[in-house]
């Protein structure tokens, strides 16, 4: 096995993408593939620069990120709260269980038309879908984190006379942080998908909207440009949270800690 230094995965990633882009460009230039379908990196780059210059990129990014921030932010607050309450009070868990489980396994985007009926086309619906998609993940992870605290730690705290409040703040909550953060990371992926897909269907701005809009005009270059922005966004967010997650990895309360 090769030694993993901090620098090499990044380097490798960059190198890998560079190779792919070069191949892509070459394949199109040499006439092996029709640029109508897959465009070429140079054209895409150009369109991105144009979109950036004209403010279009900034506008779409702002709209999408705004919807993401509100939807995901709300889902974090509600999800952690719900998960914590369910973790603390069995009754809450039993009550929420069937609903969480249904929301988790159902294809939530199918609810989109219902949200349109309730909130109309546009930003509120996008936020609603984003919220719904990630809140179930975060609530489930928070609940799991709280329920899977090493009971040995709780017993130790009790032996020193910990009250229920002590147990909650000094043992259970810190111990459930790693799992909670993992849930937050997974929630980001789902929230992002919610934003993009909801925008695909009915929005007037945003990255997803831009893909659908250019799709209607059959302008693959612009579509791919927006898509690439989304990919980059997804990677950045996931990597960022993975890094945070790694920091808290030593907090994990496995057996024998």
């Amino acid at each position, binding site marked *: *096995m*090769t030694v993993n230094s901090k620098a090499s*995965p990044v380097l*490798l*990633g960059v190198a*890998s*993408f560079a*190779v*792919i882009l070069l191949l892509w460009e070459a394949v199109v230039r040499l006439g092996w593939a029709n640029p109508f*379908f897959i465009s070429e990196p140079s054209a895409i780059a150009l369109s991105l620069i144009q979109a950036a210059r004209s403010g279009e990129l900034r506008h779409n990014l702002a709209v999408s990120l705004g919807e993401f921030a509100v939807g995901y932010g709300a889902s974090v607050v509600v999800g952690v709260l719900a998960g914590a309450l369910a973790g603390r*009070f*069995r*009754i809450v868990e*039993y*009550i*929420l*269980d*069937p*609903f969480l489980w*249904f929301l988790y*396994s*159902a*294809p939530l*985007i*199918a*609810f*989109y*038309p*219902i949200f*349109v*009926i*309730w909130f109309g086309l546009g930003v509120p619906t996008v936020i609603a879908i984003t919220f719904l998609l990630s809140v179930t993940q975060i609530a489930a992870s928070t609940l799991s984190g709280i329920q899977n605290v090493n009971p040995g730690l709780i017993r130790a705290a009790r032996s020193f006379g910990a009250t229920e409040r002590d147990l909650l703040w000094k043992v259970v909550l810190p111990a459930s942080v790693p799992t909670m953060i993992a849930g937050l990371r997974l929630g980001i*992926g789902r929230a*992002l*998908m919610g934003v*993009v*897909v909801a925008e*695909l*269907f009915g929005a007037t701005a945003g990255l*997803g909207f831009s*893909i*659908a809009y*250019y*799709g209607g005009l*059959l302008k*693959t270059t612009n*579509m*791919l440009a927006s*898509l690439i922005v*989304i*990919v980059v966004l*997804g*990677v950045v*967010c*996931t990597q960022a949270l993975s890094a945070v997650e790694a920091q808290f990895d030593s907090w994990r309360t496995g057996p024998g800690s």
Partner: protein
Amino acid sequence: MPGALSSSNARMLISGLAVVVFLAVWEVAPRMGLVDVMYSSQPSRVMAAGLDVLRSSAFLHDVAVSFSEFAIGFPLAIAIGVPLGLLLGMFPVLRYVLDPPIMAIYATPHLALLPILVVWLGIGMESKIAVVFAGGVIPILVNCMAGVRGVERSWVLAARSFSAGKWDVFSKVILPASLPGVILGIRLGVSRAVLGVVVAEMYQSQAGVGNEITRYGSEFRTDYLLFYVLLVSVFGFAATWAVRALEEKLWTAGK
């Protein structure tokens, strides 16, 4: 917690009660004028709509279309994802090169590919199959890779010490040991695939369940809409449950 309720019985009781209460409130609230029935519908209406749909001939056609899109796309995802995943798992060189783009794709919402796939393949069944494929193949691939990498080196060495050839090592050690990862990938892929069918049809299509969802949505017919949504949810759940049952069978059988 006070009360000596047997845990699993209490759980079923309270959960069941919560659902019943929910349904009751849902049914009664529009009657009491608390909420406009057009927005929320009612369990009774949804059931009535459901019966109506199930009796129509168009329903079978729609289900057939949707199901075949799934039934072609998902096995395709398995057929390509599993061998590719296993291959990447076994050859580190390939993995190092392809890992970054694969992880980038994994971090991306696969449904964002919808419009592009429609441009490439049109609004017929092909684009839906492609979406199903796209949704399923990545989790399968990633988890197959992880499954192979999870194979203990000591097992491979043990096999080699008995003069096992490359094919034997593969079929007798690596393949069985990676199976949990493969099944996990399939389970994660199933829900993405089901989602793919429905959403793709909702976006642009001529037939299928998702198409109906959009239609009823635009007609503000919440009862029919909800029935279809529930139908799709049940299917997604059933498919995931089936794979999970398979997963558990494997766990108890093997190892």
